[in-house]
């Protein structure tokens, strides 16, 4: 379990003021006519051994945030301080490309689609051993042993090593993807929608595997997802994003039972509950997610917010810690009583 504010906790990742703007270009000369503020001043930290989930709807910037942290794309500004396995802290966002490779061993990614993320022309051994080859780890025999060990770890038989991905089901392929991510003993795993392409009965198996591996290998997860039920099962803390900004961040249980941001409340209410006796009156948000290239004034959520007042239209709220560990970006966070789910 992740330490919450206890003195012993170590920050594995500290993201400060992360921004990623994509230019919008038009015309023959490709002049820049605007910017999409995909990630706009996002700050959070992840403690060693915990799971932090980034949730939100499509286009809210959760995946871009994750990719910036891995330096798969270079952020526009901001810092991502990562504590390496040797104890030193480096800013991944500003590191020159040549120095990234040793860090990449320590942060790995699990992808959403187990069908397109595995090369169909390579065997399981080639796929899982690729990070070892790329980083020149071990001899061939050592790699074979390591791959066998990894396959056993994720619940696959080592004899499968010579087969190709097409012989495996979606759930098994996701296990292969996890084995590949674990090959270099990373400390941080970024999982981008790892179960959303899977069937329900298989989802549960993969989520259980991820929880077990975390305990066994002392992994830290940054989990990117849109499914709040899945998020609840795996996270210690949750950050809700809306149009490039974090609007609320808290310990999982607290965020679900006592949300303080109207968007979180609506999001929780919109999740269909698997119980016909709970057909409650849902909060149905009007309109659509704001355009990140042309966001509304003040609080980005105000055009859809049923609690909006004049201040919301004019002033942009700041992310404030209203209770220990509970951050909210809403002018009315302290006065509103919002509805959560569960006990």
């Amino acid at each position, binding site marked *: *379990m992740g330490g919450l504010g206890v003195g012993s906790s170590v920050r594995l990742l500290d993201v400060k003021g992360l921004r990623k703007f994509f230019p919008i270009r038009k015309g023959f000369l490709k002049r820049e006519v605007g910017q999409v503020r995909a990630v706009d001043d996002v700050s959070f930290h992840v403690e060693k051994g915990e*799971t932090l989930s980034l949730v939100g*709807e*499509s286009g809210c910037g959760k995946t871009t945030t994750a990719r910036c942290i891995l330096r798969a794309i270079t952020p526009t500004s901001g810092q991502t301080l990562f504590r390496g396995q040797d104890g030193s802290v480096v800013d991944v966002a500003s590191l020159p490309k040549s120095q990234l490779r040793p860090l990449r061993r320590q942060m790995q990614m699990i992808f959403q689609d187990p069908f397109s993320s595995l090369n169909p022309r390579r065997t399981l051994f080639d796929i899982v051993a690729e990070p070892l080859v790329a980083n020149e780890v071990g001899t061939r025999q050592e790699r074979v042993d390591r791959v066998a060990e990894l396959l056993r770890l994720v619940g696959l038989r080592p004899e499968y090593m010579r087969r190709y991905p097409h012989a495996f*089901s*979606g*759930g*098994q392929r996701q296990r292969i993807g996890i084995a590949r991510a674990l090959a270099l003993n990373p400390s941080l795993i970024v999982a981008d929608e790892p179960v959303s392409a899977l*069937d*329900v*009965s*298989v*989802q*549960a*198996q993969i*989520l*259980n595997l991820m*929880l*077990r591996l975390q305990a066994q290998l002392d992994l830290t997860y940054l989990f990117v997802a*849109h*499914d*709040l*039920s*899945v998020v*609840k*099962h*795996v*996270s*210690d803390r949750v950050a809700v994003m809306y149009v490039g900004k974090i609007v609320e961040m808290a310990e*999982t*249980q607290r965020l*679900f039972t006592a949300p303080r941001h109207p968007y979180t409340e*609506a*999001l*929780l*209410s*919109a*999740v*269909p*509950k*698997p*119980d*016909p*006796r*709970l*057909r409650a009156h*849902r909060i*149905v*948000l009007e309109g*659509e*997610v704001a355009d990140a290239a042309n966001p509304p004034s003040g609080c980005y959520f105000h055009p859809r917010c049923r609690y909006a007042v004049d201040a919301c239209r004019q002033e942009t709220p700041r992310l404030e810690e209203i209770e220990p560990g509970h951050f909210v970006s809403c002018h009315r966070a302290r006065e509103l009583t919002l509805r959560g*789910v*569960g006990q």
Partner: protein
Amino acid sequence: MVDPVTDSRAAPILSVRDLKTHFFQDEGTVRAVDGASFDVPRRKTLGIVGESGCGKSVTARSILRIVERPGRIVGGSILLRRDAGNGRAGEVDLAGLDPAGYEMRQIRGGDIGLIFQEPMTSFSPVHTVGNQIIETIQLHQNVSVEAARLKATEMLHLVGIPKPERRLDEYAFQLSGGLRQRAMIAMALSCGPRILIADEPTTALDVTTQAQILDLLRHLQDREGMTIILITHNLGVVAEMCDEVVVMYLGRVVEQGPVDAIFHAPKHPYTQALLRSIPSIHATVRTELPTIAGSIPHPYNRPSGCPFHPRCPDFMPGTCDRSEPSLRPVEDGPGVSCFLYHPA
């Protein structure tokens, strides 16, 4: 709401009996739907649930007779009971019609509307949304372009698309996911079908947009008195929307019953296991989920007997792997296809 007394006496609007749709491929035959039977009650929402490969989408395509080659309906019947209000009254067996014939083309869109999962691929990218809806209307009704255009505007307005006159002349790629799905619904409903088949209508959408679309479907059903067949893998959506539920596994119906019975007193071991394994928003934080052992068998490699027996916790050797159970009612409750309730 419909009076429950008269409604229970009314014959179901659609009865599927022992439907078999097989795909004949070089590697072998895939029995995508293999003896599915269920009734669709009038003016209600029937949910068909199951995981990938269970045959739920092929069932829907079989009803509309749009199964693509090498697939073919090889057995069973699909009885549609039309009421007098919509042209010719009486029963018709869709499985016996020519898929490309006049009558089937009238039923498709006219009596039964369809909305797909991915609205982006179901609209043509080179025709405006309006032209596609107008074309649908003119195929089924003998009206002028102007009248059809007026009707199309009305439909877009009905499904809650702002400024419908302008949206009519836009292309599908200019609309957001939610608006596109609304336009899809408008097109499906433009000829006043009595049955709407919605195949994963909200799977590609975000939760808040999903809530909007589900709300819209419910509202339209109340207003038009439509019957909805909702095909989904999302048990949350089923619980919120459906009156009746059909649970499918490997091409067969394993259980059918009222929504409350399915969720609170499931009978079939597969339904029970499926309900236990879904991540719930009400669950305790960071707990392991109960899982179903194994995975869905490969379609060429169907187990003998009950298709669920290799994964079933209540497997009875000698019975479940030898003979196939059939769907029969338990007490007066839902229908179940399992030897636990009907000894062989």
